[in-house]
């Protein structure tokens, strides 16, 4: 009788273990694989375009292999790569670039705003997918290289804590009139940037905080430091490609924009991915 009770209790524990673990496993499966939310600023010139991150449950066989966008005919993608393996999900990265051989001569155009891309999958299917918001600036192509830019790159740094710095040096007298990006308003307190400059030009002195407008003499440096501070679950798993445009004005009235690339690419922890799955589940229900 005692043995039977032991056997029954053991069997009940085994069944409970399977039910609980299976329930937990099911709960933290993504209801639907899909692209993370992207907030991209890109420039339609031959270069790296942007990465598209796609998250799927580990046993999902279907993966994206390429994508196309109307108006960005030169957009091509390298073979899909695993960006990050988590305990239940895999994040894949499609690395896009603008192919120089496919660039056609054009005048400067209005920025192109995209929300959906046509995505080709490994199973042969093609679907229009909402990937977030992409803004593609379209300068004239080929570019006018007759005029020397008024600033040159001096140094740069990027860190895994989603911060970075870019320092440029004025090659002639110039005024930094401001810094802008399409995503600054959306990011709000989740993104900080700071402009610093040397007090006197030509000497290796520490940078001090500055505000715009900022007049720069020849060989004076200006640094732009930025940091992402994303905390909300939905934001932590978003992709941000921020183009911080430093607007320079020359004494003759000419304008020049120097672009500082501030990118946030998510590497979520398992806990952050669970929070994301809960949010996706909430949206699906």
């Amino acid at each position, binding site marked *: 009788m005692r043995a039977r009770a032991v056997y029954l209790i053991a069997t009940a*524990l085994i069944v409970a273990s399977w039910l609980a673990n299976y329930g937990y496993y099911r709960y933290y499966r993504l209801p639907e694989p899909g692209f993370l939310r992207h907030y991209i600023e890109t420039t339609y010139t031959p270069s790296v375009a942007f990465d598209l991150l796609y998250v799927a449950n580990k046993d999902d066989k279907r993966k994206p292999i390429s994508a196309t966008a109307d108006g960005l005919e030169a957009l091509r993608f390298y073979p899909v790569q695993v960006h990050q393996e988590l305990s239940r999900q895999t994040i894949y990265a499609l690395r896009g670039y603008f192919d120089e051989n496919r660039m056609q001569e054009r005048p400067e155009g209005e920025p192109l705003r995209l929300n959906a891309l046509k995505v080709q999958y490994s199973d042969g299917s093609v679907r229009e997918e909402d990937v977030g918001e992409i803004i593609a600036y379209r300068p004239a192509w080929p570019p006018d290289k007759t005029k020397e830019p008024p600033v040159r790159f001096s140094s740069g740094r990027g860190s895994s804590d989603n911060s970075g710095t870019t320092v440029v040096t004025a090659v002639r007298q110039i005024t930094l009139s401001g810094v802008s990006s399409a995503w600054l308003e959306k990011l709000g307190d989740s993104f900080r940037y700071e402009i610093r400059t040397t007090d006197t030009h030509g000497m290796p002195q520490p940078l001090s905080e500055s505000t715009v407008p900022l007049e720069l003499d020849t060989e004076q440096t200006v640094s732009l430091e930025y940091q992402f501070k994303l905390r909300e679950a939905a934001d932590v798993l978003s992709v941000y490609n921020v183009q911080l445009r430093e607007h320079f004005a020359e004494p003759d009235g000419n304008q020049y924009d120097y672009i500082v690339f501030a990118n946030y690419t998510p590497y979520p922890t398992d806990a952050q991915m669970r929070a994301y799955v809960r949010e996706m589940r909430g949206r699906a229900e």
Partner: protein
Amino acid sequence: MKRAFSRIAWGLGLALIDVTVNGFDLLPDVVGYGLLMAGLAKLVSRNRMYKLAWNAAAVQLVLSVLALLGLTRSGFSLTGGIEPSLNALALTAAGLAIELAMLYGLCEGIRLDALERDKERLARSARNRRHFAFASGAGMLFQLPFQLNQSLQEMLPFVILLALCVLFSWLTIVALARQAGREIAGNPGSGGGGLDDGEGSMIDMRV
């Protein structure tokens, strides 16, 4: 009857050992379960526990044929670095549960047989090994679903310990079958130890 127990011991041993060369199983489980069934077939009329073991061995035989044909694949590598899928875990658990039923039937059948012949020591031995097999198998069945949510690497020491317990419980039951062959072969009350027409000497196992 000694030959029947000898077949059971060989069958258990062959089902337990997997020798693969380039993915090809040199000692397929189907041979082991076939031998087990052949041995148990001689005993099913003695008590219903042998019948339970025979039925479980028959299911395992079918599963091992399917595995041999590449239609199913239970079990997973502890060192391959690949997380087992839900299907692999479920199949492994199902195979383990059937194995437990088979070992339970075999041990309990031997225990009942031994009691019928006043072989107290053998009966106790059969009961203890049944308990050990159940404890290690149940422990393994309990921990398997945790691998859906924990990485195998995190649980590896615990899983290896349980796997060694399951392996050892099989080995003790192989020895039990050998002991039963020696002690309860022959008619009830005869004291055992006899051979059925000298068959026991044709297949034997050296442990």
